[in-house]
């Protein structure tokens, strides 16, 4: 069977599964729709969280990014996993105890203020929208490459599927489809990795394989030593050594960690488990499921880099295998024979380099480059779609609950019935899917960039406000709002200046303390903390009932009524 036929088969099977689950788990109440009835088992929630979290970027782009960044690629790996330690220790159990549906609901009640709630609604919607457009675009690329339909059709199919199960099942439908999607995506990610690891090193475990010796057909010697040697020789810099400045890597890692812990679509997953203990356990499961992919990604990065260099460097253009021309057609590979010798020179110096490789194909084309069977190639397509759709669904739910619950029910129309609220939630998803689809088809040039910055913004706004809200009971409305506004605007200004207004100045000599716009969120977080704490010092303490809320969320177990004098 051809790759295309296999792809149709896998995509059809997986999509029928998602739709079947959606029909089976219809949501009847807002409680079902927002938090899946609140009875999700920790293991199930852990799996769903992992699928929710691992997006098209994790699945398609990350290994490629690492293979071009070498050791510096670490900031994605540590940033996107280390954030879970913060989430588990500082946020998840307490927010679960708080027991509401959304992140803006926490901010609004803890800081006893509608303007704080609305600020949070605004941040949640902006961050989620930017993100969801990227997912739609990812789905479009996969459809167009593997099913050879055009990107527009691809995006529309993706939209229809997500729309169907998100609108029907809300959080309940999303939870169980995410479990299925996790299984599909992790299988699709691991199978090629295991194959390639076996082929190149004889070790079936990719995590160990990339620290092993190459088999004699590949020339023997440790894989990483070979990679270092070839990279240096071609002028790319040593693979296992850092190229960026230490403080920049430090700040980017921190910004990604704080951002991970502050992203609303991940936080709301912890509202679906029955108790505080389950929230802790569920964070543990989530990180295990995520770590399986995240420890495999650097292995894939190293394997595919070696493979790519072996295949292309100084080889004749006409003798390139068939995947080369397939990907050339999508212009993700571009060959420009500068010296006219008919051979590919793939080197670090941009003057003489003749090959441009888009980082995304390192995962998508990897099975073809390694000459794996057709069904493995097709599996990767199904996995990438699972990753994109699962994250898109989680994000759409954040947008929908922010609008129906926080904006309508809590602000604009407090008297609506539960049925009406549910209808608003479904309408909000519908509109959000349409807008996301539009941007997936007509991507504004800056989506990819902004996605990375969404972390900086989440880090500089949500993270400090939530942590202070839990750990510092005297933190008041004035301090929190001032902190969020300062952190968000400072980070946004720095990013907009260097990325959109004066991109020509964006280099280490103009950056403050050598921190790139990607890492500035850390600075924004610190600024937020300083401003919040100092404003809080000079303004009145929060009212007694708010301090009772704080005392309450610090204790696991059943809710204690605020009317009781002592807890």
């Amino acid at each position, binding site marked *: 069977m051809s790759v295309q036929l296999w792809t149709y088969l896998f995509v059809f099977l997986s999509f029928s599964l998602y739709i079947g689950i959606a029909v089976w788990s219809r949501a009847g109440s807002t409680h079902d729709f927002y938090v899946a009835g609140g009875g999700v088992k920790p293991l199930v929630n852990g799996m769903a969280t992992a699928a929710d979290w691992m997006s098209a970027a994790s699945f398609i782009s990350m290994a490629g990014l690492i293979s071009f960044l070498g050791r510096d690629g670490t900031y994605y*790996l*540590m940033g996107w996993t*280390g954030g879970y330690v913060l989430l588990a220790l500082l946020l998840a*159990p307490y927010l679960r105890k708080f027991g509401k549906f959304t992140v803006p609901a926490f901010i609004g009640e803890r800081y006893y203020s509608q303007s704080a709630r609305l600020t949070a609604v605004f941040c949640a919607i902006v961050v989620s929208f930017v993100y969801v457009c990227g997912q739609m675009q990812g789905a479009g690329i996969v459809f167009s490459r593997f099913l050879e339909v055009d990107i527009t059709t691809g995006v529309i199919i993706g939209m229809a599927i997500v729309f169907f199960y998100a609108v029907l099942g809300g959080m309940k439908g999303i939870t169980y489809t995410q479990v299925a999607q996790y299984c599909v995506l992790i299988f699709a990610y691991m199978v090629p990795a295991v194959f390639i690891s076996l082929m190149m090193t004889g070790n079936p475990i990719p995590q160990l394989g990339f*620290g092993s010796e190459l088999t004699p057909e590949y020339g023997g010697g*440790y894989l*990483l030593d070979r990679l270092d040697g070839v990279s240096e020789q071609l002028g790319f810099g040593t693979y296992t050594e850092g190229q960026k400045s230490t403080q920049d890597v430090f700040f980017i890692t921190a910004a990604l960690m704080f951002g991970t812990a502050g992203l609303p679509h991940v936080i709301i997953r912890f509202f679906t488990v029955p108790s505080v203990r389950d929230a802790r356990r569920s964070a543990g499961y989530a990180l295990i499921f995520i*770590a399986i992919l995240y420890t495999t990604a650097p292995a894939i990065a190293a394997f595919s880099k070696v493979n790519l260099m072996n295949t292309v460097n100084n080889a004749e253009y006409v003798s390139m295998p068939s995947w080369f021309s397939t990907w050339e057609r999508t212009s993700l590979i571009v060959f420009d024979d500068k010296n006219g010798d008919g051979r590919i020179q793939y080197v670090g110096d941009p003057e003489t380099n003749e090959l441009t490789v888009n980082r995304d194909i390192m995962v998508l084309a990897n099975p073809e480059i390694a000459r794996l069977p057709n069904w493995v190639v097709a599996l990767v397509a199904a996995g990438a779609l699972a990753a994109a759709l699962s994250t898109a669904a989680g994000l759409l739910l954040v947008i929908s609950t922010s609008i129906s619950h926080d904006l309508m029910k809590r602000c604009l129309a407090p008297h609506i019935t539960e049925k009406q609220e549910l209808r608003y939630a479904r309408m909000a998803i519908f509109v959000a899917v349409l807008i996301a689809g539009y941007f997936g088809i007509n991507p504004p040039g800056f989506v990819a960039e902004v996605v990375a910055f969404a972390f900086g913004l989440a880090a500089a706004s949500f993270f400090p406000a939530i942590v202070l809200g839990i750990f510092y009971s005297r933190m008041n409305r004035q301090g929190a709002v001032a902190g969020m506004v300062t952190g968000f605007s400072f980070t946004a200004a720095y990013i907009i200046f260097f990325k959109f207004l004066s991109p020509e100045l964006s280099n280490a000599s103009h950056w403050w303390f050598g921190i790139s716009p990607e890492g500035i969120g850390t600075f924004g977080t610190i600024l937020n903390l300083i401003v919040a704490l100092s404003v809080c010092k000079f303004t009145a303490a929060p009212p007694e009932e708010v301090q009772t809320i704080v005392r309450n969320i610090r*204790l*696991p177990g059943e809710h204690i009524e605020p009317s009781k004098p002592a807890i």
Partner: protein
Amino acid sequence: MSDKNARSYWQANVRIVLRLLCVWFFISFGCGILLADFLDQFRIGGFKLGFWMAQQGSIYGFVILIYVYIRQMDKLDHQYKLDQTQSADSSDTNIEEQS
């Protein structure tokens, strides 16, 4: 649960979190970034140690950290009888002696 008990429970909770966050900082920012070049002189198999910590070890460390946290919090909850389906007021007595 009395006010005093709630306070001491919370202090114990914060101590656990702070201790674990120190380890978190050390394995990620410490070993993976600040000390990575220094650690690179040691090797395990084909990995330089600093590189391995940055791309593998720190992630395993994070998983272990969360599990240590779950265990320590379970113990603490048990100590303060917060793990039973709570009837907080009836369990007030005796907790101070245990903790």
